[in-house]
């Protein structure tokens, strides 16, 4: 936990220095320490995987996570573009500079001192920015006086295989399933299966993509709190794991570890669908300040 002070106006003050330090630590930890929810999912997958090569790959992913944690090196060399989901309490007053600068300084320091790969470049010249900034921030203002951040390093391989569809409403659940399966099949081995499939439905063009990404923050193995969506997720994961793509796309029963869905209402004319593929190196660290 981080220290807090209450100002006379009743606003809780949080120093940008606290934010920088927390982001720095989270960026390094996320890249060295794979969550136990993911390694538990690997172990559960081993029970179901029938392909000998697939089993061997999953065992090696478990070993890889152990090496990374023990030897303090990244799980994957692609230590990602840094995505930050932030929920800022309305009664929080950030002092000492801008929020973005504080977060980016944390990423800058974490990626330098943690020997993480700098993977951000200019889209035209392809020149590396050198410090893994800028970061992508999704900010939400919420009631209260807490600041919650999720630091999510996201690799390029799985991001490249993600897709967005503006479906006609007539497509319905059947159309959604077809597009999710199509995305997984077309991606094949490229996004480093076994993957986690983030599905965002509704909202609009950009909101569906944010929902899909945000769904990936959910603890792997935790069911969707909405029973209707939980059953849809189950239906999709069963279909996905019939494709035979398997670990690393070399054939097998476990193409994906889970499907996570987030849904919100949309325009009467639209049925937005975003499919954000997450590789097995599913890294995210939550910080509560």
């Amino acid at each position, binding site marked *: 936990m981080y220290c807090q002070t209450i100002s006379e106006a009743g606003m809780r003050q949080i120093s940008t220095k606290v934010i920088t330090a927390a982001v720095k630590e989270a960026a390094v930890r996320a890249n060295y320490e794979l969550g136990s929810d993911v390694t538990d999912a690997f172990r559960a997958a081993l029970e179901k995987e029938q392909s000998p090569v697939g089993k061997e790959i999953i065992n090696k992913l478990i070993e890889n996570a152990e090496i990374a944690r023990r030897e303090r*090196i990244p799980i994957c060399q692609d230590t990602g573009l840094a995505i930050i989901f932030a929920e800022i309490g309305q009664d929080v007053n950030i002092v000492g500079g801008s929020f973005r600068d504080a977060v980016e300084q944390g990423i800058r320091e974490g990626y330098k001192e943690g020997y993480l790969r700098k993977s951000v470049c200019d889209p035209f010249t392809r020149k590396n920015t050198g410090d893994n900034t800028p970061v992508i921030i999704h900010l939400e203002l919420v009631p209260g006086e807490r600041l919650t951040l999720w630091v999510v390093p996201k690799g390029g391989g799985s991001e490249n295989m993600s897709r967005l569809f503006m479906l006609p409403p007539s497509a319905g659940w059947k159309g959604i399933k077809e597009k999710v399966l199509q995305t997984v099949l077309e991606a094949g081995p490229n996004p480093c299966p076994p993957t986690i499939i983030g599905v965002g439905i509704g909202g609009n063009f950009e909101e569906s993509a944010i929902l899909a990404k945000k769904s990936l923050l959910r603890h792997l193995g935790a069911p969707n709190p909405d029973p209707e969506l939980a059953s849809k997720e189950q239906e999709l994961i069963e279909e996905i794991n019939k494709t035979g793509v398997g670990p690393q796309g070399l054939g097998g029963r476990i193409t994906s570890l889970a499907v996570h869905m987030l849904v919100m209402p949309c325009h009467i004319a639209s049925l937005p669908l975003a499919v954000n593929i997450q590789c097995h190196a599913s890294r995210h660290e939550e910080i509560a300040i």
Partner: protein
Amino acid sequence: MGDSIRLKTPLSGGDVSGLRSGDRVTISGILYTARDAAHKRLIDLLDQGKALPIPLEGQVIYYVGPSPAPPGRVIGAAGPTTSYRMDAYAPRLMELGLKGMIGKGKRSQEVKDAMTKYKAVYMAAIGGAGALMAQAIKEVEIVAYEDLGPEAIRRIRVDNLPVIVVNDTLGNDLYVEGQKLYQIP
């Protein structure tokens, strides 16, 4: 990987022709690292009729952009990157003697045809297992394009790097065959 084939680089035509899609291989010797930015520069040099900074005859390129080496290590994490980004460049390099490529993910039909024509193979390392793959890397030296940072060309010495043959010289493709084997209609 008790039943794997042990290969030492550089590879001969015989080494490569004997490999089959699905074979598990451990590679030792020298590999060169390159991603798309480095490939683009190599092709630009060829277009200008200039010499390349690395040899190609019998060589193997590992598609990887490692994370920086922490103190006391030769390299950081070093798993494969997605190979299709090199598809535009790979046939030209095979024509000049490149015998092996290590990466992850599907290759284009043009690349597969070039593997058959020029007798080369494509092997997959485990994507996302960067910490594990790094254990096999013993020496690292930047040989070209240091300005590209993680994308610079490195000459690396590996000891028993574990890979699996995806595309062989006969046109077989483990991604297609493996998936078929486990598909439930």
